[in-house]
C-alpha cells in the first residue's frame, strides 16, 4: 500500500449510502431498480441525487426486479453504463435474467444487500440469495464494511467493463450489518473517481456484414444480439464465459492494486484477504462482515499464544483456487464458515468449493464447515471464538464431523 496522495473526505455513511455515492461518482447512464429491504436505501439515496440534478442518469423505477435486470441488460446492450441493486426475493426473481445478462456479456453492476430467502419470510442478513446464483455467470465480490462497499462499487465498473472480461458483477454487502450500519467512510473526489473509471469501452466484434464494430446496438452498424443458438455453437459461447472469468481473476487483482495507489486502500490481493495467516496452524475462512469480528478474536488468541489465522474470501466468482492453495497450504485445520445452506448437501457452498480447491494439494488442511447466521442470527465474539476452540481440540483428537451449526438451538 502506498501513501495517500489525494485528499479524501471523511463521511459517516451506512453501506447502502456508500454504494449510492459510489454509483453517483461513477457517472452511470442508466439505473433501473425495484425496492427491496435491505437494499432500498441505495435506490432512495440515488433518487435524491436524481431529484436534485446531481447525476446525469436515467433512473427507471421498474414494476419488478425481473424488469429491472432486463432494462439494465438492454441499456447496457445499447451502450449505457448501468447499475441496479437488489436482495433476497428480488434477486431470486431476477434469476432467469442473471443468466441472460452474463450470457449476453453485458457489464451490469449490481449491489446485493445480502438477505435470507423465504420461506419463512425473513428480512435479515445472510448469503442465501447470492450463493444461490453462483452458477449464473456473474462475478461476485463480498465486502467487509461500508468503506469496502464504496471502494468495490467503483472497482466493479472497471472490472465488468474491461473488454477482456465483459461480465456482470455483484458486489455483496451483508444486509443490515453493513447496509444499515453507520460507519466512517473515506470518499475520493468525484473527478478522481470519474477518471479512474473512465468512459465505457466496447469489445470489437465481427458483424454479419463482415465489419468489425463495437459490440452494441447501433443503427449505423446493425447487429443481432441474443440469437437463437443450436447445439453446434452453444457450448463454445459458454466456454468463452469461463475464459472471461479467468481474465477477471487477473483484472480484479490489477484493479485492486491500481485503486490502492489512488486511495491508499486495498483488500488483500483483491481475491483473498489474509490476516495473520503466514504461520497459522488453525484458521477460519469467511465471507463478508464477520471477518471484522474474527480479526479481534485472532488477536486475542495470538496473545494467548495460539497460532490462529483468518482468510477472508473477497472474490467468490471467479473462485481463486490458486490463491486459496497458496495461502492455506500450511494450515493444519481450517474451518470454512457459510452464511447459507444447501439442504441435502454435505455442507454449504463456500465449504464445498474450498475443500474441493484444496484437494489437489499433496499436504492439505483438514477442512470443516460451520453454518452460521442464517436469517440474521447474531454470531457473538464468544460464538466465533468457539470455532477456534473446536479447531484446537480437533487438532489434538483428530476426529470431527464435517458440518457444524453455530448458535443454533437443537
Amino acid at each position, binding site marked *: 500500500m502506498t501513501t495517500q496522495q489525494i485528499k479524501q473526505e471523511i463521511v459517516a455513511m451506512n453501506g447502502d449510502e456508500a454504494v449510492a455515492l459510489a454509483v453517483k461518482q461513477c457517472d452511470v*447512464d*442508466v439505473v*433501473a431498480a425495484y425496492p427491496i429491504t435491505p437494499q432500498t436505501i441505495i435506490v432512495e439515496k440515488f433518487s435524491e441525487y436524481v431529484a436534485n440534478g446531481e447525476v*446525469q*442518469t*436515467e433512473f*427507471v*423505477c*421498474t*414494476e*419488478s426486479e*425481473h*424488469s429491472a435486470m*432486463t*432494462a*439494465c*441488460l*438492454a*441499456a*447496457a*446492450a*445499447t*451502450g*449505457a453504463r*448501468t447499475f441496479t441493486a437488489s436482495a433476497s426475493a428480488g434477486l431470486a426473481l431476477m434469476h*432467469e*435474467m442473471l443468466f*441472460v445478462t452474463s450470457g*449476453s456479456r453485458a457489464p451490469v453492476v449490481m449491489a446485493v444487500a445480502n438477505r435470507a430467502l423465504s420461506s419463512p419470510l425473513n428480512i435479515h442478513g445472510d448469503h442465501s440469495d447470492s450463493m444461490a446464483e453462483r452458477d449464473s455467470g456473474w462475478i461476485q465480490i463480498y465486502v467487509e464494511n461500508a468503506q469496502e462497499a464504496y471502494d468495490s462499487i467503483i472497482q466493479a465498473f472497471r472490472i465488468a467493463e474491461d473488454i477482456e472480461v465483459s461480465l456482470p458483477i455483484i458486489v455483496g454487502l451483508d444486509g443490515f450489518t453493513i447496509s444499515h450500519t453507520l460507519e466512517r467512510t473515506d470518499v475520493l473526489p468525484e473527478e478522481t473517481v470519474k477518471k479512474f473509471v473512465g468512459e465505457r469501452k466496447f469489445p470489437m466484434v465481427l458483424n*454479419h456484414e463482415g465489419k468489425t464494430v463495437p459490440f452494441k*446496438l*447501433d*443503427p*449505423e*452498424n*446493425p*447487429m*443481432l*444480439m*441474443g*440469437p*437463437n*443458438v*443450436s447445439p453446434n*455453437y452453444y457450448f463454445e459461447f459458454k466456454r468463452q464465459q469461463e475464459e472471461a472469468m479467468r481474465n477477471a481473476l487477473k483484472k480484479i487483482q490489477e484493479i485492486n492494486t491500481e485503486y490502492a495507489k489512488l486511495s491508499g486502500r486495498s483488500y488483500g490481493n483483491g481475491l483473498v484477504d489474509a490476516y495473520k495467516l503466514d504461520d497459522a496452524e488453525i484458521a477460519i475462512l469467511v465471507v463478508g462482515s464477520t471477518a471484522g469480528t474474527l480479526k479481534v478474536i485472532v488477536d486475542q488468541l495470538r496473545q494467548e499464544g495460539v497460532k490462529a489465522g483468518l482468510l477472508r474470501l473477497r472474490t467468490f466468482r471467479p473462485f481463486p483456487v490458486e490463491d486459496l492453495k497458496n495461502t492455506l497450504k500450511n494450515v493444519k485445520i481450517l474451518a470454512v464458515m457459510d452464511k447459507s445452506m444447501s439442504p441435502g448437501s454435505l455442507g454449504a457452498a463456500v465449504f464445498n468449493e474450498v475443500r474441493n480447491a484444496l484437494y489437489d494439494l499433496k499436504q492439505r488442511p483438514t477442512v470443516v464447515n460451520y453454518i452460521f447466521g442464517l436469517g440474521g442470527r447474531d454470531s457473538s465474539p464468544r460464538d466465533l471464538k468457539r470455532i477456534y476452540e473446536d479447531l484446537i481440540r480437533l487438532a489434538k483428537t483428530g476426529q470431527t464431523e464435517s458440518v457444524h451449526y453455530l448458535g443454533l438451538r437443537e
Partner: protein
Amino acid sequence: MTTQEWKFTAKEIAQKPDLFLSGHRACAGCGPAAALRLIMKATRGPTIVTQATGCMEIVGSIYPYTSWALPWLHTAFENAAANASGIEAALKILSKKGKIKQEHIDVIALAGDGGTIDIGLQALSGAVERGHDFLFILYDNEGYMNTGIQRSGGTPTGAATTTTPAGSVNPGKLEKKKPITEIMLAHEMEYVATATPYYWKDMLTKVRKGLEVDGPAFLHVFAPCPRGWRSEPARTMEYSKLSVESCMFPIWEAVNGKRQLSTPSKLIALAPQKKKPVKAYLEGQGRFRHLFTPQNSHILDEIQRNTDERWNRLLQKCEPA
C-alpha cells in the same frame, strides 16, 4: 401526434428495402412473417427492434444468421417491453450526453399473444405506465404456436389447441379471448390501434402513427397461423380479411382515447348487411372443425352471439363516423 396522413403506396413499399429479410425460417403462409415484413416498411428512420421469445423471434435469429437489417435484441419471453424500457432509457441519456450521432432512434418491441397477453403483460403495463417512448406491436396468432400450439389468453372460445384439445367432454377452449386492447386503453395511452395484414395500407399507417407518438403506443396485429389454425397456407390473407368482415376482429384506432373504426370495419357499421357470419370465418380452420357437428352447434351460436355483443359494445365506444 401530428395529423398528417401517410399514404403508403404499393410502389413505394415495393421499392423500400426490406428490414426483415427473406431467408428466415417461418412456415409457408405465415401471417406474422408477412405482417412483420410489411410493418418494417413503415419505419421512419433509425430503429432498434426488440423481440420477446416466440415464432417471429426464432425464425429470424438463428446463429450465425440474421434476418434483421437493423439492430435487434432478444433477451427472454416475458420482457419485450422491459427491453424497450432499457433501450429507450439508454438512448435518451446517451443522446443527452452527446454519445449518439442520430437525432432520434425509434424503438419497436414485438411480441406474440403469449408474450403480450399472458407472460408479458406485467412488463408491458409497467413500461406503458412509465411512459417510455416506444411502439409495442402484438402479433396475435392466438396461441403458443412456437412450442406446438398451446392455448394462450389470446386463444378464442372453441379453438382446439394441444392443451385445449377437442375431446368428448370439452369442445376446445372454454374461455373467452382476453380483451388486451381494452386493457391497454385503460392505461390512457395516446395511441392504441388494431390492424391485420390484409388491409396493409391501414396497418402501415397505424405503425407509422404509433411511431410518431412521443411516448408509448400499442398496435394489435391479427395474424393467421396456418400451422396452429390447421388452415391452408394459401388462405392466410383470406382469413385476415374474414376476421374483419365477420367482426371477429374489427379494426380501429384510438387517439387519446377517442376511438374510430377504420374504413373496412366502418363500412360494416354503416351497412350491417355486409357483416359476414362467424361461420364464414371459422370454417376451413381445423381448430374449429369439431364445432361443425350437431352436438357442438350451440357453441357456434355462442361464438356468434358473443361476437355480436362485442361488436355492438365497440360501436357504442366509437366516435360517430
